[in-house]
């Protein structure tokens, strides 16, 4: 489904990704962990198509198509979704309009008819229940005045409405209390299926108690330095990241023969 080969990217001449390799197959859940500044969010933004990040080399394909060549909206229409770490406030655009407009763009790309306001209301009620959000949210401006937890649940609501093939969750757990974390995880798990994949970008292991990954990757210095199964996340929780940094440094030293 998603194939990333030796991807390098920079922002304003600062190199952030230094050769990412990642393969995500249908139905898989991958966790990307790493210390602050390791490039996790950059990877998420690059996959979603943020224009501030310049890909300098490497490639990425989504279902066999060149991902890097696609505009952000084309990626969305083909089924990639990014849940933002910092969802953007959009004054004057209410949530219902925002959700329905996005959904109808994606339906159009899939060759489906646009959904009218009444059908949409039926759908959205069901999805609101999933993330335990009140209908009154629909009338509020997108993310404006939302608490941190509300913003994150609103991201998962969008995920539930748009039903992407690949969902990338960028630090969706940050700033959530345990109840909100469970709601978010429940929403994500409900949407996960054998043909839908999830990439969870997170600093902490905590979310992975609820969204159980098939693979865990450790990102440091802009590259994936270690991969494993879910037990790796537990090990990181206990031992931190320093031992991996050390292990990586040793390996690099061996390679260059110091």
């Amino acid at each position, binding site marked *: 489904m998603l194939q990333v080969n030796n991807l390098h990217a920079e922002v304003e001449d600062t190199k952030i990704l230094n050769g990412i390799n990642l393969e995500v197959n249908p139905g898989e859940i991958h966790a990307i962990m790493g210390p602050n500044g390791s490039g996790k969010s950059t990877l998420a933004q690059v996959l979603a198509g943020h224009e501030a990040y310049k890909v300098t080399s490497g490639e990425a394909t989504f279902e066999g198509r060149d991902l890097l060549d696609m505009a952000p909206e084309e990626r*969305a229409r083909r089924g990639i979704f990014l849940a933002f770490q910092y*969802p953007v406030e959009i004054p004057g655009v209410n949530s219902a309009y925002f959700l329905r407009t996005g959904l109808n763009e994606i339906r159009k*790309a899939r060759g489906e008819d646009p959904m009218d306001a009444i059908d949409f209301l039926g759908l959205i009620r069901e999805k609101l229940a999933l993330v335990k959000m009140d209908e009154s949210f629909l009338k509020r401006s997108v993310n404006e005045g939302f608490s941190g937890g509300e913003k994150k649940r609103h991201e998962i609501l969008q995920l539930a409405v748009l039903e992407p093939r690949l969902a990338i969750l960028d630090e969706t757990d940050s700033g959530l209390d345990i109840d909100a974390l469970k709601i978010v995880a429940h929403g994500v798990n409900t949407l996960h299926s054998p043909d839908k994949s999830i990439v969870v970008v997170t600093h902490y292991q905590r979310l992975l108690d609820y969204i159980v990954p098939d693979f865990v990757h450790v990102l440091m210095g802009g590259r994936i330095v270690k991969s494993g199964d879910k037990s790796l996340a537990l090990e990181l929780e206990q031992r931190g990241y320093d031992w991996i940094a050390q292990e990586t440094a040793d390996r690099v030293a061996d390679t260059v023969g110091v």
Partner: protein
Amino acid sequence: MSVDKSTDRREWYLASFRGFEKSLNGGTASALHQVRRAAIDCFAETGFPSRRDEGWRHTNIAPVARISFRSAPDSPPAGLSADQLAPFTYPGLDGTQLVFVDGHFAPSLSTQETSLPPGVVVGSLAAALKEVPDLVEPHLGQNAPYAGEGFAALNTAFIRDGAFVYLPAGAGLDAPVHLLYLSTARAENEGQDAGDGPPVTYPRTLIVAEDKARGSVIESYVGLEPEASYLTNAVTEIVLGAETRFEHCKIQRESGGAYHVASLHVTEAQGCRFTSHNISLSGQLIRNDITTVLAGEGVESTLNGLYLASGDEHVDNHTCIEHASPDCVSHEFYKGVLSGQAHGVFRGKIHVHKVAQGTDAYQSNQNLLLSDDAQITSKPQLEIYADDVKCSHGSTTGQLDEDAIFYLRTRGLSRAGATGVLTQAFAGEILDLIGFEPVRDRLAQLVSAELEATLHNGSGARE
């Protein structure tokens, strides 16, 4: 069209006025005609403004001043039907709608509310001058100044018809009155020496609300042909008694080649609550002068405005709030969306007189530039002569938030789609302040269509 590069066609208008006087058939003895004469004398003296005048520094009116505009015909074109007016009406407003075609009242196209409260007058100015002159004459031409104001002077000199709305003391009008000024862009075919200049109309509106009355008026200025060229030279006077509640909404949807120069003058007595909405959607060159005089204590006055300009359109809003009494509050909230090579001008003057202690005035002007070549000139002007005042202003000009555009794109919207949604939201903040839902909703649709056209023909999109 006839263009003389050396003069501002002053002689042309003076000759035109003499022709107009003849057509009045003895109506030159009236009090109104003395006002007309005074106004044409003022025009003869000063002519049109130029960029040397402080108030016109950013709007080059010379192209308009050079054209020999001809009077529009007296009668509506045969076969003009209600269907043709439909795009300019607001279904769901059930008040009186007066239609003026090329400046003249068209009774057959108008609808009168049947159950107006006693004493209320809503009708054509020409009829009111005959039937209730004592309600009209004390106010008509007495509020909006014309000395040194070339356009207002011409409008006043050529007053013949327009609208008159009168609310006696304590009267309440629930549904807004809609005054629809339609230009068909036909010119009178008189075989004058000036050839085939485009037409001009002089719509005149007088609104008088006595103490404790409440009501609302919507003034629409629209062009029947999408690209026609003509001049609308409009003046509206509003006189509000003590403790009135009044909402005024001006909607300007002139043709693409049209010039529109208008002034609105409001006088507010003690304890008034007045709101003005000034919405400009189209036209080649638009100039609005809005002056409100807070003439009694405890007035609360609000001026809202939204202007959209694309292509090479020019839109200029000059507002002036005269805080002439103590303890008055004024709010002003103007927004502009400019694309292509459009040029916007906003000048907001707040004049706090020495007596106006306890003034609380706030002004905001926000502009969105959707292209690299669009321009805005935004000039707040605070003149404060009292010492116990709260007076502030803010002006911002910028582009859309790129983070918000990216966010919307990740949800499937194209860049143009995202730009449209965000721009609509920006403009919507002003439309939402309008008190009449059918108008609000229809204007939101029109703004949306206008933005879509702008963003999809590429003249406004920023890549």
